[in-house]
């Protein structure tokens, strides 16, 4: 009975990992703020999640470090992860998360993450900095997901069995779990970046995502997404300098 009443049943779920530059989290922030009709569905609690609380877009809402948002119209769910996982408990969190994900009968899983640009191979130094991976090694999943043909799969280094996922946070652990589990099909979206101000990188990733999923309405003339920047992006580096000190 519980499963039949789940509004998220068969909804694809999009979530970030805490990765280098926090690009995935910033991208989900931008998606939540810009996509119309997305509402908070609930909070996720786990003892391994480092707690963080604050006000949402409206001060009447108190948000916690992990929340689920649902867009009933477009049938998608977003999981926003705002803080890190306690040291040494990443596997525990990933195992429990995947257990919850499967019980909740979500549809596909899309992970937004980032990779350390310092670890790029020679072929990755120029051109598009966006890559993807799917849990289907033969790549047929790409067609089922409707992924764009010009998207690049994350390359492996010569002689290595798996592509390097430096800086991707939980993405590596999730990929290992999902590779051994046929029950869940997942797509990982990565962008190369470094630590620092990555708002532009996050916007770039969100734009690519939106070209695929169309979650954010676009301008009719330019076809550019109508981004609405979230309040959490304000003062990332402190208050503006007071001019009266000069």
């Amino acid at each position, binding site marked *: *009975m*519980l499963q*039949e*009443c*789940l*509004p*998220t049943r068969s909804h694809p779920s999009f979530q970030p990992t805490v990765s280098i530059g926090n690009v995935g989290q910033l991208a989900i922030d931008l998606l939540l703020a810009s996509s119309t009709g997305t509402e*908070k*569905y*609930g*909070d*996720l*609690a*786990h*003892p*391994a*999640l*480092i*707690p*963080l*609380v*604050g*006000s*949402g*877009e409206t*001060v*009447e809402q*108190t948000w*916690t*470090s992990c*929340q*689920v948002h649902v867009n009933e119209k477009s049938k998608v769910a977003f999981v926003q992860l705002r*803080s890190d996982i*306690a*040291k*040494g408990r990443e596997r525990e*969190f990933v195992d*429990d*998360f995947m*257990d*919850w994900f499967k*019980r909740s009968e979500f549809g596909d899983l899309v992970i937004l993450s980032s990779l350390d640009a310092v670890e790029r191979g020679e072929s990755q130094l120029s051109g598009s900095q966006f890559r993807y991976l799917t849990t289907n090694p033969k790549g047929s999943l790409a067609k089922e997901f409707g992924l764009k043909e010009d998207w690049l799969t994350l390359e492996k280094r010569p002689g290595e069995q798996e592509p390097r996922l430096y800086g991707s946070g939980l993405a590596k652990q999730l990929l290992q779990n999902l590779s051994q589990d046929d029950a869940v099909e997942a797509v990982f979206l990565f962008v190369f970046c470094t630590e620092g101000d990555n708002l532009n990188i996050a916007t770039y990733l969100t734009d690519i995502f939106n070209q695929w999923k169309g979650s954010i309405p676009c301008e009719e003339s330019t076809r550019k997404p109508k981004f609405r920047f979230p*309040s*959490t*992006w*304000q*003062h*990332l580096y*402190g*208050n*503006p300098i*007071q001019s*009266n000190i000069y």
Partner: protein
Amino acid sequence: GSVVSLLRPVISPAPASGRLNLSQPVVPAPDQIGTKRRRLYELFFEGPKAQTLLLATNEVALGFSSLYFLTAGQKPDGKIVETLKDEQSSSRDVCHIFTVTKGLIVCHALDANPDLNYVNDIGSKILELLETEAHIIILASDSLSNFKTVDLELDRQSDLLRKLVSDSWQESTSWSSPPPPPLESPNMVSGIPAALMTFAQFKKIPCLILINYVDSKTLDSITLQGFKKVFEIPLLQSFSPTIPQKNVEKRLRELISKVEQGNLYI
């Protein structure tokens, strides 16, 4: 909104509304948390549980709580102890617990900057102090320079008071005067206050965090005055300061004198 535990499957009857019924989430028993971790936390307290729990974190909040809720030299009635699972099995107190009166417990978090990897463990022990229908009031302080705003007038003030409440906190019946403004985005709260607020959202416990932003950690009448708003909550109004003013000043001087102040910087 609903709250989900990621720990174990939750099987419960679906509500009439058709939305996910999370009224019976599964929470691990407190002693299950930390059994494989490097640190263990234990609660030592045998008094009656709290209908109202007042938690003080950070130096300014501890000073206010000591001055207005505790008698001079009051000894703790209980504690939460952290034990390191190393060769020495060293331990230390992380919280002191005081029974102020029947139903009201004051808890002092002794570490101003606890290891964030373990604040959930500490928070779960603090929760064991609560009765079923309890309220939590948390006093926290932070540097004014950490308050993010574009309002230059706010930026020039020497102290600011803000609040965060859980969904279960009944705002309309909680204050005898206009409540403090809510904490504006993108400001946030971490540490033990955040752990308790998250638990409170999860378990539908009325919880209030009062955050006093001050320009100095020095205990004085200005840095402490923001917290006096707590006496406008009916739950705590019976504890309005009745100590004669000269005693408050005297105790404040004694409290300040205990704080080490080096003479390297004037």
